[in-house]
């Protein structure tokens, strides 16, 4: 008989302790590196662009984390950083780490710089479900903003190039004509299918047979009743067809009525196609500055969307892609609790940052951030940022508590170095130099209100040396613009995320509109008149036959249905009269 083996292998305790010792030693050696790589990966996933850390030191015993050389690449610009930080020193809670939660009581960030250059592209390739997908959504939103092109005629103003196939009215009118034709055919086919003449003939024959009939001709009376039923059924179908015809005619009429509005749009479109210069300052302003403004608003919307994704309201379980590994990543699901630690919480951060000036060293500023958390409903208060200094006012509020979803950011900076702006459609770049800039962005659920303004008293103009001399009108525009030495730009977006409206006003667009009107006003007015008559001619070629067709259809529809209706009514009446005569008004079973 063999002895039962012992449950424990006590001699394995030594090797196990050895393995444990090796694990601890590896942790001591590589913890900083592992944490640095994890933070880089998590940060990159959140920002949607590369996040790099040069040095990281974690002191668990003291609850201190030091990061040096933090670089956050821009998800929008290839060779630009959103942020660089010389040093971040954080006091972290050790107990929350056991719950895999990061609670930072105090963070001191020194040497923050924004919009710095980088040597490699820090953008990440788009991944479905990742933050990078929000980038696509923000770009899609940007495309919803109507940004007209700056139209400056490249030679003699002409209107000969209007292509009828590009006019919506022509296409709509052709479609309506085809629809009117097919509707007419369908109604005629349905009417033929009802076989009204056959029904009327059969009923008339029955009336004749009933004229000599008596009450005892039970079979004949039953047949007569069936004939009455058939007449009634045909009448009902005819009534249904009549309703169909009326609604079809109404739809066609409303389509035809819409052609007038389409004609106005076509005229505006044709104006763009033949590139007639516009004197509308709003349109010129939008053409000059809307792309730059849209890019800024698009970026703000992207960061708001990121905040909403990573700081969602409520306490429901939250799933996000799991860590990258050889095995499938799956989803990591978090279960926030009201009286627990948030997954990430930064109680207070003291930020010291610098902004470039036109001359001299960069100016230093300080700001304070409180309550940045991944679980706003656990913390119960909004995230607030404020920075005030001479010539600087900046603030942000992210309020996702109690499902409120209000995000706003505002900043007004005076006496800072402003970035150059390229003017689309012209070979000119505008360098505002030293000046003031203001930016505001507020998103409440899906209502958006944003503004971007720039003011400079001494702008400089640079012409693209590679560009050709351009047309007379282009040269005129260049002359007008380069004569202006001051910039007052105000852009605004309002409406909803689905339907944003962008307005741009500036002293440059007014100057350009006045200059163009003075030089080209009469010529453009004449060209506009010619263009309008050309559009009218092309549109009328299609709408006139349509209107005739509609009139014919409306006038034909009446007799088409009224005649068979009258015939059916008459034979039904005759049949019922005969039946009443024979039965004496008594309803027989």
């Amino acid at each position, binding site marked *: 008989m063999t002895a039962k083996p012992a449950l424990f292998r006590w001699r394995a305790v030594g090797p196990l302790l050895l393995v444990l010792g090796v694990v601890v030693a590896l942790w001591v050696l590589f913890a900083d590196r592992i944490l640095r790589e994890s933070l880089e990966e998590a940060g990159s996933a959140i920002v949607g662009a590369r996040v790099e850390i040069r040095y990281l030191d974690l002191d668990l015993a003291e609850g201190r984390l030091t990061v040096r050389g933090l670089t956050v690449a821009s998800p929008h610009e290839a060779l630009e950083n959103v942020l660089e930080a010389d040093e971040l020193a954080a006091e972290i809670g050790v107990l929350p780490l056991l*719950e895999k939660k990061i609670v930072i009581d105090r963070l001191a960030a020194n040497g923050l710089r924004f919009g710095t250059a980088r040597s490699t592209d820090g953008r990440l390739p788009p991944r479905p479900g990742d933050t990078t997908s929000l980038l696509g959504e923000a770009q899609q939103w940007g495309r919803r903003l109507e940004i007209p092109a700056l139209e400056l005629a490249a030679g003699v103003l002409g209107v000969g190039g209007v292509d009828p196939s590009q006019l919506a009215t022509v296409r709509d009118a052709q479609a309506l004509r085809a629809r009117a034709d097919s509707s007419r055919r369908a109604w005629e086919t349905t009417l033929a299918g009802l076989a009204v003449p056959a029904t009327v003939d059969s009923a008339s024959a029955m009336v004749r047979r009933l004229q000599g009939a008596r009450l005892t001709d039970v079979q004949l009376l039953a047949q007569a009743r069936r004939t009455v039923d058939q007449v009634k059924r045909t009448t009902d179908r005819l009534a249904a067809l009549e309703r169909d015809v009326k609604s079809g005619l109404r739809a066609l009429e409303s389509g035809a009525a819409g052609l007038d509005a389409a004609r106005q749009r076509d005229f505006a479109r044709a104006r763009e196609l033949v590139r007639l210069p516009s004197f509308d300052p709003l349109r010129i302003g939008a053409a000059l500055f809307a792309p730059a403004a849209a890019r800024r608003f698009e970026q703000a919307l992207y960061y708001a969307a990121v905040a909403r994704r990573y700081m969602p309201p409520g306490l429901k379980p939250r799933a996000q892609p799991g860590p990258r590994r050889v095995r499938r990543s*799956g989803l990591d*699901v978090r*279960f*926030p*609790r009201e009286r627990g*630690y948030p997954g990430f919480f930064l109680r207070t951060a003291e930020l010291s940052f610098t902004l470039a000036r036109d001359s001299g060293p960069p100016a230093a500023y300080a700001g304070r951030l409180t309550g940045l958390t991944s679980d706003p409903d656990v913390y119960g208060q909004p995230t607030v940022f404020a920075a005030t200094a001479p010539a600087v006012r900046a603030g942000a509020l992210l309020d996702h508590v109690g499902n409120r979803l209000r995000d706003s950011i505002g900043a007004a900076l005076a006496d800072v170095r402003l970035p150059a702006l390229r003017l689309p459609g012209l070979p000119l770049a505008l360098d505002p130099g030293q000046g003031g800039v203001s930016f505001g962005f507020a998103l409440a659920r899906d209502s958006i209100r944003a503004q971007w303004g720039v003011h400079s008293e001494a702008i400089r103009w640079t012409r693209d040396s590679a560009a050709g001399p351009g047309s007379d009108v282009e040269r005129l525009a260049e002359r007008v613009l380069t004569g202006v030495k001051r910039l007052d730009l105000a852009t605004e977006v309002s409406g909803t995320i689905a339907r944003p409206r962008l307005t741009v006003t500036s002293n440059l667009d007014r100057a350009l509109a006045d200059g163009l009107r003075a030089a080209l006003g009469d010529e453009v007015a004449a060209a506009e008149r010619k263009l309008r008559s050309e559009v009218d001619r092309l549109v009328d070629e299609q709408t006139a036959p349509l209107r005739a067709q509609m009139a014919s259809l409306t006038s034909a529809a009446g007799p088409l249905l009224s005649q068979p209706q009258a015939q059916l009514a008459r034979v039904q009446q005759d049949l019922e009269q005969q039946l009443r005569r024979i039965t004496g008004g008594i309803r027989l079973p």
Partner: protein
Amino acid sequence: MLVIKLIQSIVKALHSEGTPAQVAAGLALGSILGLTPLLSLHNAVVFALILLLNVSFPGAMLGWALLLPLGFALDPVFDAVGRRLLLDSPALVPLWTALDNMPVAPLTNFNNTVVLGSLACTLAFFLPLFFGSRWGVARYRTTVAERLRRSALYKAVTASKLYNLYRLVHPEG
């Protein structure tokens, strides 16, 4: 090379000194290492159990090696099971919430759909795997192994000088 190693560990496990129950227990514990993502806290506990409990270590390594490819192949199933448990079972939400907000438990990555799904499936098959493999090892030893030992080839190989040399290097092989 990998296949030879695998065959070697199969032979080692089946012919080791351990009882069929020890081999089966090792195999079942090793299956947890193979079927669930390796770098998880629960696997440290499983590894400690393999060392501390008197189970067959070659059996555990065999279980790990055999079930590792299966783990990869079954990841979509584990993911689906994990999603079902974590996201589609409202009755379990209080449990997950409590676990997610208590020290150490979140470090096990229980809140990952693949980790939880694979662990749940492995634990569900733990006892069937243990009893099944215990029966299999016992059957093998009474039938196939015995016949193998009596075969002329086995006798010839074990009598050879080369084998004796091998036993010098691997005395318990």
